[in-house]
């Protein structure tokens, strides 16, 4: 099968094009370094099946970052029939350098000038024919985001593939010496083919930046925007969630209970209290998750992330980090795993490890479910969003404290050089793709080890069968009793300890486990929990959930990315200790103050 590779500088729209071309749903975002791993899909081009590979962006074939190495290793080790180079048409003065460098590899190539919509708006004129002539390769102007020029691009790729020689590996070492010659050529090709009006700046971005990057108001506005976003997710999501919970109750009562009525009680309990309540409770959070990720999609695609890096860099540098680490923290609000992978853009190992230390404190969407549940169950409606926001502040606090403590051991020595892309807004199509991605991801997780976790909780809380469910004599009860001396000073009782134990697998399991333990669906669960614990206990529990190990997937990725067991042990052990200390201080102080 023939193979084509999508290459280009970061943030030029490779993944957007990849999605258009193959119908895949690769993650897209207005931040250089969204794709950090290989992604491939197969499509029919002309008459043959072709493998298309989306690569991480590279500035230079001789770069030293992990994501650049991924791209480079791929080119060196895998035979490729055709390079499809994607360049940002508004920045050809910078981007042609990579095109010329790639040309020195001598592989067949097609150049796509992406974001032609933005180039037109800025009044940039590109003589495509001339450019194609000077470079000696096909050139097509496209807008991957809006779908313009896709037919022509497809045609050009098919054509070029047909006449391609046998696939080759790239000999990148050889091209090292040619960098200087490239520079002279770049000037010439650019001035021959591109005309940029003198005032070609994005005035909208400039004006917005004057406000959002304001020396005094920039940061407060940033935090205000965040607060606003969480408020919105909360106010819009809560009713939706109630709706789903209600629906699940109805299904349970009218469909499930009649069906299992004749079964033996243990099987009944397994199906109703274990599977249905456990999984149902987790599923009832699907609307909030989707909503949350739609907002995240807007934030990630807006270009505000890079601005956040600009605003926070001075502060982060005092913690031994840089602005990008802050952006990874923000990305971690969605899910810690891609954020941890995102650190591949960092070259210095110290900086990377330190950033990987702090990302797991980011309050991810799975933890958000737990907190939405508890804040709604325990606090007044007006206070709930504020309590939620306070947890986000703790999330930052724990991360910054950790960086302060470890910055000497994990020393960072890396220059910061970052692009500030113009502000953009995702199309409906892009938002839909993102929402769909997250739903499938969520369902895959829920049907995998979350299901396993819930079944385990059910088993442990229901055996032996001759004692009350989830009592101290059950297996789970005995396990929890072991931890009681440690957890009691935090105000966390045995039942909640069981939930925490299983929350180690994934935070979604915490709620599933509670539903199983109390034998109630999401609808009733809130009432039960509200009666069983007070707000001090609930907050102490939430602090613990916030800070301790997020989930097994993050542990696996921490190991995979650090390639060090020692670091992984530290990155799991330290938060566990911090979680205990934070909850202890909070709980004991609150009780001492008389709450």
């Amino acid at each position, binding site marked *: 099968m023939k193979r084509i590779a999508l290459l280009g500088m970061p943030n030029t729209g490779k993944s957007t094009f990849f999605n258009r071309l193959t119908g895949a749903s690769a993650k897209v975002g207005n931040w250089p370094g969204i794709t950090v791993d290989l992604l491939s899909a197969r499509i029919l081009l002309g008459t043959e099946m072709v493998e298309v590979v989306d690569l991480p962006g590279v*500035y*230079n074939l*001789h*770069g*030293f970052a992990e994501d650049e190495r991924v791209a480079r290793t791929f080119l060196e080790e895998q035979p490729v029939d055709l390079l499809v180079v994607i360049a940002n048409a*508004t*920045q050809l*003065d*910078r981007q042609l*350098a990579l095109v010329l460098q790639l040309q020195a590899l001598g592989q067949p190539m097609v150049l796509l000038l992406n974001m032609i919509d933005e180039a037109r708006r*800025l009044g*940039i004129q590109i003589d495509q024919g001339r450019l194609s002539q000077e470079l000696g390769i096909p050139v097509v102007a496209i807008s991957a985001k809006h779908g313009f020029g896709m037919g022509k691009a497809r045609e050009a790729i098919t054509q070029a593939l047909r006449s391609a020689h046998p696939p080759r590996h790239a000999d990148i070492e050889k091209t090292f010496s040619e960098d200087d010659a490239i*520079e002279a050529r770049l*000037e010439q090709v650019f001035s021959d083919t591109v005309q*940029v009006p003198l005032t*070609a*700046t994005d005035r909208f971005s400039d004006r917005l*930046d004057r406000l959002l*990057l304001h*020396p005094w108001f920039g940061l407060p506005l940033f935090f205000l925007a965040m607060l606003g976003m969480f408020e919105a997710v909360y106010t819009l999501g809560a009713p939706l969630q109630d709706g789903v919970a209600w629906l699940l109750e109805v299904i349970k009562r009218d469909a499930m209970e009649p069906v299992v009525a004749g079964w033996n009680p243990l099987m009944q309990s397994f199906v109703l209290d274990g599977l249905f309540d456990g999984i149902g409770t987790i599923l009832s959070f699907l609307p909030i998750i989707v909503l949350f990720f739609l907002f995240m999609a807007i934030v990630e695609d807006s270009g505000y992330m*890079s601005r956040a*890096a*600009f*605003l926070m*860099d*001075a*502060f982060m*540098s005092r913690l031994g980090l*840089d*602005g990008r680490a802050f952006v990874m923290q923000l990305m971690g609000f969605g899910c810690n795993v891609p954020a941890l992978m995102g650190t591949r853009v960092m070259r210095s190992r110290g900086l990377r490890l330190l950033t990987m230390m702090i990302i797991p404190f980011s309050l991810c969407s799975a933890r958000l479910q737990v907190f939405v549940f508890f804040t709604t169950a325990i606090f007044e409606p007006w206070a709930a969003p504020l309590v939620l926001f306070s947890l986000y502040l703790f999330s930052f606090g724990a991360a910054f404290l950790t960086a302060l403590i470890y910055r000497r051991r994990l020393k960072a020595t890396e*220059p*910061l*050089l*970052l*692009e*500030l*892309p113009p502000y953009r807004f995702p199309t409906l199509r892009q938002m839909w793709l993102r929402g769909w991605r997250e739903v499938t991801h969520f369902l895959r997780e829920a049907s995998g080890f979350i299901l396993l976790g819930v079944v385990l909780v059910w088993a442990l809380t229901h055996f032996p069968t001759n004692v009350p469910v989830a009592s101290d004599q059950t297996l789970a009860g005995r396990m929890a009793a072991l931890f009681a001396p440690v957890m009691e000073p935090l105000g966390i009782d045995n039942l909640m300890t069981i939930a925490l134990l299983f929350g180690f697998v994934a935070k979604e399991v915490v709620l599933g486990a509670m539903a199983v333990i109390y034998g109630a669906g999401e609808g009733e669960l809130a009432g039960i929990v509200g009666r069983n614990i007070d707000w001090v206990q609930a907050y102490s529990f939430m602090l613990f959930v916030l800070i301790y190990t997020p989930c097994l997937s993050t542990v696996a990725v921490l190991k995979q990315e650090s390639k060090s067991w020692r670091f992984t042990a530290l990155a799991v052990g330290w938060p566990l200790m911090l979680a205990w200390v934070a909850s202890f201080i909070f709980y004991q102080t609150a009780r001492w103050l008389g709450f």
Partner: protein
Amino acid sequence: MPRVDLSQGRRLPSPMTMIIICYPDYGELLMKAQPKQRPRTLADLLPGQTGVIATIEGDPELRTRIQSVGLRPGRHVAVIRRSRFGGPLQVRLGTSDLVIRPQQAAHIMLA
């Protein structure tokens, strides 16, 4: 320019005062106070000023890094804004905007 003199053994100002005192960007104030002389590196430019890159100094890795994002000799650059507390600069290079720390900008010599 406000100053805190800690050498005379007086007690430290309160945290609030510290915040207020620390807020202005000393680097920038200092630069504004200095007699006008030609900026030598990109890091010396004030917001709104432009220059032409002459050479890029530093170790090869840093030089490659700087050049690969497009900061090459001969190109016009403008500083759009500087962030507070000695934070990074927003630099405009043709139609692209870049964020660069002053430490690295100081390696970019202007003509």
